[in-house]
């Protein structure tokens, strides 16, 4: 199973390098991400698999396609010599193989990674944090500060897109005219699916304590619901619901919500992000803390993902405007 997955990964990667049709490459990347997600699944890393499927296969593919609309479909022949990159890649690959020579076997219970820090997470987290999903415990509590940092990375990516591409605030809106043409079947399907997508996103947001999921995945799914709506029902329709300036502020509010949980504990005499300041009961304090920070993550991820999409689709309107046929 593992070997066949790996073989498929290799085939996809080589195909993606060789093909010059960028649409095909984007699709191959999507397949690659799904395969990786399956791989993570077979390693029992469900949260990671979920994220990879939502981000790698889902939203990244949509954004790449949006970019292709702006650039062109075919890659130009590279001008540079291919030998130097080949040597660099070979050396890197050799170093990676060398590094795994002494590595513990996959799934070995005696591997150092299973012996030192993680037993405490496995044994104590149900008592200390009080939630069954240990991944969420580590992510949002034991190493909650890292997650705060990652949320700031996403916020920063949003700022980068705003700075480089800019978002036309009152950008042209074409209600009822969609980027992919009038597709009656699609419209009906999307109309039926959309409530479920948004509902599922909320479920993922709130259910991260018990099953796979959390703010990150939920934000992406919620955003993809809006993107789908925008793609099928009309360019800029989603903008009418959430204007970009508002979205920018929402992204800021998300990270601020996360950080203010930390500040709250700090001003109550506890360490930064020590959730025990939130309630007298230790486990319910953890619950409240994790709920709030996941909410912050969800808001920021949703806003940034949608901002990036708006930035790309806004550009498309500018460049495509000239050769668009009049509405039927």
């Amino acid at each position: 199973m593992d070997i066949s997955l790996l073989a498929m990964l290799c085939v996809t990667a080589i195909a993606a390098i060789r093909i010059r049709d960028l649409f095909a490459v984007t699709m191959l990347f999507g397949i690659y991400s799904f395969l990786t997600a399956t791989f993570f699944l077979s390693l029992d890393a469900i949260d990671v698999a979920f994220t990879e499927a939502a981000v790698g296969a889902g939203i990244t593919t949509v954004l790449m396609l949006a970019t292709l609309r702006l650039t062109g479909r075919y890659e130009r022949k590279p001008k540079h010599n291919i030998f130097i990159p080949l040597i660099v890649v070979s050396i890197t690959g050799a170093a990676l193989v060398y590094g795994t020579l002494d590595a513990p076997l996959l799934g070995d219970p005696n591997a150092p990674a299973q012996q030192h820090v993680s037993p405490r997470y496995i044994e104590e987290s149900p008592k200390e944090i009080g939630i069954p999903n240990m991944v969420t415990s580590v992510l949002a509590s034991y190493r909650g500060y890292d997650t705060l940092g990652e949320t700031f990375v996403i916020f920063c990516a949003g700022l980068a897109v705003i700075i480089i591409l800019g978002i036309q605030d009152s950008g042209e809106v074409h209600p009822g005219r969609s980027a992919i043409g009038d597709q009656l079947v699609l419209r009906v399907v999307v109309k039926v699916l959309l409530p479920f997508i948004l509902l599922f996103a909320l479920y993922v947001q709130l259910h991260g304590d018990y099953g796979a999921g959390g703010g990150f995945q939920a934000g992406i799914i919620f955003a993809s619901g809006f993107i789908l709506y925008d793609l099928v029902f009309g360019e800029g329709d989603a903008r009418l619901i959430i204007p970009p300036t508002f979205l920018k502020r929402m992204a800021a509010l998300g990270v601020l919500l996360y950080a203010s949980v930390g500040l709250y504990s700090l001003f109550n005499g506890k360490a930064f992000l020590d959730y025990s300041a939130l309630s007298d009961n230790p486990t319910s304090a953890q619950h409240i803390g994790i709920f709030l920070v996941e909410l912050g993550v969800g808001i920021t991820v949703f806003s940034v993902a949608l901002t990036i999409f708006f930035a790309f689709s806004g550009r498309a309107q500018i460049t495509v405007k000239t050769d668009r046929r009049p509405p039927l």
Partner: protein
Amino acid sequence: MSLVDHLPILIIIIPLIAAPLCVLFDSAKASWLLALAACISSFIGSIKLLNTITLSGPISYSLGGWQPPWGIEYRLDLLSIILLLLLTSIASLVVLFARYSVEQEISKNRIVPFYATLLLAIAGLSGICISGDVFNLFVFLEISSIASYTLISLGKDRRALNAAFKYLVMGTIGATFILIGIGFLYMQTGTLNMQDLSERLPSLYDNRTIRAGFAFLTVGVCLKLALFPLHLWLPNAYAYAPSVVSAFLAATATKVAVYMLLRFLLTVFDFNFSLNTMPLDVILIALGSVAIVSSSLVAIFQVNLKRLLAYSSIAQLGYISLSIGLASKLGIASAIIHLFNHALMKGALFLALGAMIYKVGGAELKHCQGMLKRMPLTSLAIIIGGLSLIGIPGTAGFISKWSMINASLEAGLWPLALLILFGSLLAIIYVWKMVEAITLQPSTSTATAPLTRDEAPLTMLVPIWALVIANIYYGINTELTVSLAQRAANILVGGY
């Protein structure tokens, strides 16, 4: 815990939280004030922390209240606080300088996100210097990197976008290598905490996974450090970025990379393994020497002064790597001294060029004509900064060079001492080029612009001259830099 106990986290999260606040307020003036206030408060916090550390040793702070190695630890020792002082002071001065320069160079609707991104870059770089956890260090490296790419892309010149993209590709490869290295270390030790790693690694030094991890970490950090031949992203990035960004990044970003190198080599691994068992000492000396000679030579032929200084930066990073490669306490100490002094020189020089661009409209040799008459204070700042870059006695640069030459002689490597002197000779040539253009060139542009005195505004002159005076001060009073750097080097070589 009182608020003072929280200082280690406060100096990081104040700029971090100020960034989204800028976006919320959405006003250019408010963003500038907020950024300035955030940087100055972090600077004051760092001074206070320096006092605590020199008196009572390293500070540890457990984030989320979880004990390390289960939770994330902030750990502040002398090296960290030297870097933090440098970062926060330069950040405060740069932000003070930024107001008019940014108004001129960056379009109106981008000023607010610019300050937000600058604050994220500051917080990211500071977070790297304080973290006692390798993965947390990586997270903050990501924040600072993405912020830096964005800041560079804001340059007026269209080539800025290309430069930022190149930096993004190289920087991402570097970051990925660092992450692979961290993964390898975790695979064999099961921990991410630096102190915990340093206790568990020595028994594993023969392990191939650990050795490969060491190689990945070193190469990744050297990409960020712009060590020859991994420096190709740097000249354009510094040349085409907005003036404020060039000044800030030149003075801090590569210095933080040097910090990471020292931290990984000497704290996570140890001195003997990194610089004796592994052949890294020879590699660092060789690459450092090539960097000094080749980049100084290239610098001589530059017409754009920002590019000239960028190549000079690569040469200075060569000096620093060479000093680390000497594998002695004195060598490490001189690397730290030069790291600090070079930040002062380049900060002053890039800011002065920024003032020149603000008034004259460019930083090429042709723009220098009549500078001395037109902007005497800025010109004088460039001259003194240049002297410090050469290493004239009485400036901070002299202390660096002196200590590096001492370290090479101590190691019995007199050719290296000669090489350092030769590098200074080359520096004389390229600094002379700048000085000559400023002072001696006839002012042919009288027809187009009257050569009256037209000095930069006070918010620019104050930061420039603060750094120029620091260059002279640390050239005369060596107590602070040299003794702190030596103590820091002793701690690093002797273990955590």
